[in-house]
């Protein structure tokens, strides 16, 4: 039997997190945490290498025979993209939060929780068994809850409980569907929760729709889509930038990830049935999130709302069922992780100096801290999908892919593209430009970003720029997943209308 790399990959950070709960010095704890994160990064890259070399990484061990639950892990292109995003972002978040806000829990606890969250998220992205997925899906809530409640802003308790309740409500509905799957699987022979086995069942009709809706609601809450999104701005506003990065960049991806892997993968017919609804739903999210961002008076809320808008684009791409849009959505998931990370972390740097997230509290920062302002602008440009940034490629794929099927819907959704420019640049204008205010002069003069802070931004923006100019590797990584899903659903791309043009 070959070495179970995927199990190792997920267990390594969890082990590190547990180890960090032992009493030890603050310096040692942080270094140890970072060490584990870097080791996980190395293993993650190794896994990517093995995947590229065509190795069979799947792990499949019987777990609970009575249910037909398996300890089954595997990665496809989409899973690997998410895994890579997670392992890259975690050490960066650690470095950015090297000094969590004073007076709360210790940095050691923060690092431990981050590691556990990382491990659990990795298992979520690798799980190839519905029960296993559900288990880790719910388990990620625990470290996240403590990350918010332990390190956030003044109303962190409210935000944490809200986050937990929304997520648990979704998880509960999903649990009902998971149980329902067992009933169906058992009625057709030996019960099995393996995704591959369940996909063979082709659960159609009313039953399939109800089960799909159960999964979908959980994912809608997770990915947040309007109107179940209000937990996200609160959670982002009242947590630290690092937590917000992991929450929005990594955890929320489970929503769209799940839609593709489970809603489309297990219930193709029901997913097609839900398409008209979901497409408009996505458009509402896009516009709603954009307007919410425009109306935000708090930087963290603003970034959170931009994410609501971006998730709308991902969902739109998923339910457009074309190769371009679906590949674009998956690619968008990857890019959005880095883009939001950039936004949250720069906002965090600014707030660390200013002591406030209020847009009103800033003004004229560009003059005294040009590097901070420049990085905020570049991060913002990635959020508004400027060509040259990888976010553009993915948004372009989603828009053009969707257009070929639903031109009107796409046209409405494209208003979000303009609104993106409005919210990003208005925020930049109000915070960074104009005359230097007194507060800015006090807090920012001579306190531009430190070397470490700049270094953290280098890989994030580097990925965004590199994939912006050379998106082919990422596109090739995610396209097989999209192809497989579309083949499974049984949909083909619309052919060009004008024949023989090419």
């Amino acid at each position, binding site marked *: 039997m070959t070495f179970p790399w995927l199990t190792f990959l997920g267990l390594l950070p969890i082990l590190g997190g547990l180890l960090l709960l032992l009493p030890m010095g603050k310096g040692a704890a942080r270094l140890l945490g970072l060490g584990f994160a870097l080791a996980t990064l190395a293993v993650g890259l190794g896994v990517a290498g093995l995947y590229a070399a065509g190795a069979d990484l799947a792990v499949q061990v019987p777990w609970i025979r009575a249910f037909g639950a398996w300890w089954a892990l595997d990665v496809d292109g989409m899973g690997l993209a998410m895994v890579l995003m997670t392992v890259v972002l975690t050490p960066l978040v650690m470095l950015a939060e090297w000094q969590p806000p004073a007076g709360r829990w210790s940095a050691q606890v923060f690092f431990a929780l981050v590691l556990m969250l990382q491990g659990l998220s990795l298992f979520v992205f690798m799980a190839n068994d519905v029960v296993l997925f559900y288990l880790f899906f719910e388990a990620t809530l625990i470290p996240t809850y403590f990350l918010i409640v332990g390190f956030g802003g003044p109303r962190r308790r409210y935000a944490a409980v*809200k986050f937990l*309740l*929304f997520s648990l409500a979704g998880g509960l509905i999903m649990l009902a569907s998971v149980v329902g799957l067992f009933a169906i699987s058992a009625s057709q022979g030996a019960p099995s929760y393996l995704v591959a086995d369940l996909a063979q069942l082709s659960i159609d009709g009313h039953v399939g729709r109800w089960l799909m809706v159960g999964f979908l609601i959980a994912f809608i809450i997770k990915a947040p889509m309007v*109107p179940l*999104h*209000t937990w996200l*701005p*609160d959670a982002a506003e009242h947590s630290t930038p690092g937590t917000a990065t992991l929450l929005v960049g990594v955890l929320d991806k489970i929503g769209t990830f799940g839609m593709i892997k489970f809603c489309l993968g297990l219930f193709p017919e029901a997913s097609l049935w839900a398409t008209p609804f979901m497409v408009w739903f996505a458009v509402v999210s896009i516009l709603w999130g954009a*307007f*919410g961002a*425009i*109306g*935000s008076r708090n930087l963290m809320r603003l970034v959170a709302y931009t994410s609501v808008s971006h998730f709308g684009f991902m969902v739109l791409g998923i339910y457009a069922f*074309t*190769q*371009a849009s679906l*590949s674009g959505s998956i690619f968008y998931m990857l890019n959005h992780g880095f883009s939001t990370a950039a936004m949250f972390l720069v906002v965090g740097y600014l707030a660390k100096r200013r002591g406030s997230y209020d847009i009103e509290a800033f003004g004229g920062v*560009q*003059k005294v801290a040009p590097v901070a302002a*420049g990085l905020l602008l570049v991060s913002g*440009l990635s959020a508004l999908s*400027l*060509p040259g940034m990888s976010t*553009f*490629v993915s948004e372009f794929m989603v*828009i*053009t*892919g969707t*257009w*070929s099927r639903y*031109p009107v819907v*796409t*046209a409405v959704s*494209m*208003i979000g*593209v*303009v609104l993106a*420019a*409005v919210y990003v*640049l*208005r925020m*930049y*204008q109000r915070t*960074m*430009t*104009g*005359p*230097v205010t007194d507060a800015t002069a006090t807090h920012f003069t001579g306190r531009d970003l430190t070397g470490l802070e700049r270094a953290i931004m280098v890989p994030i923006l580097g990925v965004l720029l590199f994939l912006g100019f050379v*998106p*082919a590797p990422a*596109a090739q990584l995610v396209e097989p997943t999209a192809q497989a899903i579309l083949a499974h659903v049984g949909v083909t*791309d*619309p*052919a*060009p*209308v*004008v*024949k023989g*043009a*090419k």
Partner: protein
Amino acid sequence: MILFETIAEPVVATGMFTWAWTMIAVPAVVAGVLLLAGKLSDAWGHLLATAAVLWSFAIAVCLFGHQLFADAGSRAVVAPLYSWFSVGEWSFEVGLLVDQLSILFAMLITGVGSLIHIYSIGYMAHDERRRRFFAYLNLFIAAMLLLVLANNYLVLFVGWEGVGLASFLLISFWQHKPSAAAAGTKAFVMNRVGDLGMLAAIASMLAMFGSSSFTDVNAGAHGLAPQWATMIGLFLLLAACGKSAQVPLQAWLLDAMEGPTPVSALIHAATMVTAGVYLVVRSHAVFETSPAAQLAVVVVATVTLLAGAWIGTSQDDIKKVLAGSTMSQIGYMMLAAGIGPAGYAFAIFHLLTHGFFKANMFLGAGSVMHGMNDDVNMRHYGALSTAMKWTFGTFAMGYLAIIGFPLFAGYFSKDHIIEAAFAQNTFIGICALIGAGITAFYMTRLMLMTFFGEKRWQPGVHPHESPRVMTIPLVILAVASVVSGLVMNNWIQEWLEPAVGNHAHEVSLVPTPVGMATMGIVAAGVVISYLVFGRGSIPVKAPATNNPITLAGRNVLFGDQVNDALFVTPATAVAAAVDATDARGIDKAADSSADAFAGLSTQVRRLETGYVRSYALTMLGGVLFVGVVLILSQLG
């Protein structure tokens, strides 16, 4: 459709053409270097940046030379660079198309760009952020070249957004001024509205043709269903309106004058704003398939050329007069492009001559401002013709060129357009003719207020001529303003014929009837302007007026107010409504459901008396219940 085939098969790049990509790469890399190197490059940054543009110019000239001496069939060259990405059936290649059209643009951009770089060395000498300014300029040059050299719409779009970014950065270059920052944001957002059109057009092309390359689109356009041809045409027109400040997306251009003057000259007069014209000419096949789209272009162009001229008559800010004039002149180009095959070459012709004389005048205005302590109000000028001789001389060349003084550049290019307009539709022609008259009127007003009359200088202002590094570019541009019309008049139609698919018409130097009428109208405009502004004294403060035409002109035809009423206010209201719905609707619902459960549990909590005996009683009750149920179930 023989015409299309001439562009359908561009030859693959060899020799010199394999260097074409460095035209874009060198300025881009230099921009990156200057931005990343920080203060280290303060000392030599501007020189490096200028050298980079000169490099691009040199390459462009070499390529142009190659093409000039190549036979007509092998002039269009495509230089594939790399495969960007592919998804499904669609693949997106990054490649450059160096054909007769794009090389002219490349030369205009790099040529005028080089001059403006040189000029800026002097103009920005005292700005502590000069290095950054040059980095942005280089970024602009790279993006603009990418825009015109791209061989498909997607890569064009990358350049399209790139110039938007550079424009944003340069307009709001003096960020400490809130007005500059706001102007930059406004420009970017309004451009984005246009970009939507571009995006929609590309998406439609992909849906229709499965490709976005110029070759495929032009080849397939005639197969389009009429409504889709119109849609794509309108999308492209929307994009062009955003970039070229055409009505209804014109409002940003006057605010864009907040940027440093070289920026106004390069981006907002000579190059970027003409990208819309380029786009329409490039997509000629689509427009030719849809008369409705063409009509829309013509209508937009006509409205804009009159609106821009109108604005030019009433502004007191010298740069805003020139900006209004730019709008108006681009209107002429769009008009020509919308007329159809007959007009493409004239559109490009006017675009080139306009690039020269408008850059010349903007830089001249910059020179004036340089001497007047950055005052832009023409009412504070006067009698500068003696104080700034070189500036005056070169500006006068530009003035004569724009009003269409015989044998100057504008005389050829504009007359052709007016003639073509008359050939298309008399009403449009009359509008174009009136526009020419108004142009003469406001430009004469500008000249009179700036260079003639009595001194109205503010205290402490001592006008002086600008340094050599600024006047030499002025002279070069002035020469170009004078001769470019004459040089290109006969040649350009022929040259562009394969690229834009139009048959050369015979043009003569002898004025046609329409040309005579134009000259008459122009002369009338000059005379009226002289009568109004040249004889009496000009008040230092703008006189109050109830004249609706003047008021509208001063307020930029109320473009901002219209935008506010139609978009900004509703959007703000929607944002507030979203905020309120989230806070008081959705959150309230979530919170009150939580409160409801809390209230319920407060009631249920009363069961928890804390008395162990009550608990025991309940337990016993439970035992009894279970026992009874078990027994009953056994019985059952």
